[in-house]
């Protein structure tokens, strides 16, 4: 990666900008001159107006973009935080004891391959149609990703480092706190990054069913009212939010783990 992104030259900035500018301009022109149907491809100027409308008046009437945004954000963070709080200690234990790992391996693999959104009917029975079921679904998706990555992180701790520490009179507790924990942190961060991505995917699906609040609901509702412009604005906001969260995580990671480049986790 670093080789590919190491040396930037002006073309890496100018070409993409020019291309995107040209695309936007072409899109605007084609839509206003009847070559693209605005309902299918709402032009940038309309999107801008819709954004203003969404922020000022909201959609449906009275529910502003800020409200949708805050709700979605709140659900993601609640589910993610719950998942991390449960998965990390559990994953550390499972990774540390080979027997536990063996016993749980297939269960974890299976639960990860269950599509989170298919749990929707169960979630509704258990937690109703309100916040509870959405937080549960996000939590479920994040939990298994986080758990699998935590277990893998512990399993991948370089045994040589543990040996080296043991030649320096490091007892079991100290070994865990001062060797194992720092050694697993990079992979935990990678897992958290992926878990957030999963949470993001789940929330959009979860909000598409049985609610009018949240960004997922916004884009779905707008379609039923033939307001594709609002749908597209909603998509852009969701994308922007996802991008911002990922960037913030990376920033945080570089700050907290200055000794190394980010590692890849597993989905």
């Amino acid at each position: 990666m670093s080789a590919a992104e190491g040396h930037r030259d002006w073309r890496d900035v100018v070409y993409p900008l020019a291309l995107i500018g040209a695309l936007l301009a072409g899109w605007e022109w084609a839509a206003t001159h009847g070559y693209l149907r605005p309902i299918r491809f709402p032009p940038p100027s309309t999107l801008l107006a819709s954004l203003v409308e969404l922020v000022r008046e909201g959609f449906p009437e009275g529910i502003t973009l800020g409200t949708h945004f805050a709700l979605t954000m709140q659900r993601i963070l609640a589910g993610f935080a719950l998942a991390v709080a449960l998965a990390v200690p559990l994953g550390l234990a499972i990774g540390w004891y080979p027997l536990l790992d063996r016993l749980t391996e297939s269960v974890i693999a299976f639960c990860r391959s269950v599509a989170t959104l298919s749990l929707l009917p169960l979630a509704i029975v258990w937690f109703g149609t309100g916040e509870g079921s959405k937080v549960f679904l996000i939590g479920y998706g994040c939990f298994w990703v986080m758990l699998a990555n935590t277990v893998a992180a512990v399993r991948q701790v370089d045994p040589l480092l543990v040996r080296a520490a043991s030649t320096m009179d490091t007892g079991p507790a100290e070994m865990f706190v001062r060797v194992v924990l720092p050694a697993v942190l990079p992979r935990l961060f990678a897992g958290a990054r992926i878990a957030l991505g999963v949470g993001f995917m789940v929330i959009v699906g979860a909000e598409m069913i049985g609610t009018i609040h949240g960004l997922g609901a916004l884009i779905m509702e707008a379609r039923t009212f033939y307001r594709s412009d609002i749908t597209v604005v909603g998509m852009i906001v969701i994308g922007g939010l996802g991008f911002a969260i990922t960037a913030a995580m990376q920033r945080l990671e570089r700050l907290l783990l200055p000794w190394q480049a980010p590692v890849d986790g597993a989905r």
Partner: protein
Amino acid sequence: MSTDARLAARYPMLGLLGALALLLAWELAARWLWRDPQVLPSPIQSIQAAARHLTLPEVAEHVGVSVARVVGGFVLAAVSGVALGIACGWYRPLSRLVRPLVELLRPIPPLAWIPMAIIWFGLGEPSKLFVIFLGAFFPIFTNAWRGMRSVPPVLLRAARTMDVDGLALLFRVGIPAAAPDITTGLRVGFGLAFGILVAAELIAAESGMGYLVMQSRQLGELGLAVFGIFLIGVVSLVADMALATGMRRLIRGRGTLS
């Protein structure tokens, strides 16, 4: 860590044992603890519920429809993602044009495209294929691109000293060297395709495993949902294994990995 090897050698079925123990605990708890199949039916109750509402051929049809959708969307994504990723990794100017667009679209979750997919393609199969395609495309493209970018330059130089260049260099050195990354991308993409399939079917479909799960709500039969959830899990697990095995064969057949 050697404890682990010993455990694996002595008790190869430990993983199965854990899963069976969990299922048994669930079965017993559902029968003696909460006792209400409308809270969480036991595994056996779920199968009975499924048997009440579905025949085996019907189940097979739901599975078949879903698998066909996944495979369709995945193949689209695999062909375009791998080709575009390799091309962008090989030709820098192309990468300058394509990558920013990809990076711009990537943060939008695939499910968020569903409304526009319906507007563009209607409620039928194409919109589902489109959403599944989108879900699988990004990891496939990125891994192929990254794989090509991280081919050790020394490998390319060594090949050049042996008079290999142009397309031969791409096909005989570049792509084989990037093959592990490309296969990783394909597997990740396939997993995502499955997750997205269900969502697409939950929201707008009259068949498929996701539809099966949603139908349970209308019928007020939670057992059917549990059955569907398990069906999805098993099918995606089996499909993933099949894909992994297939790709391992393919790569080994070409002799690119030791």
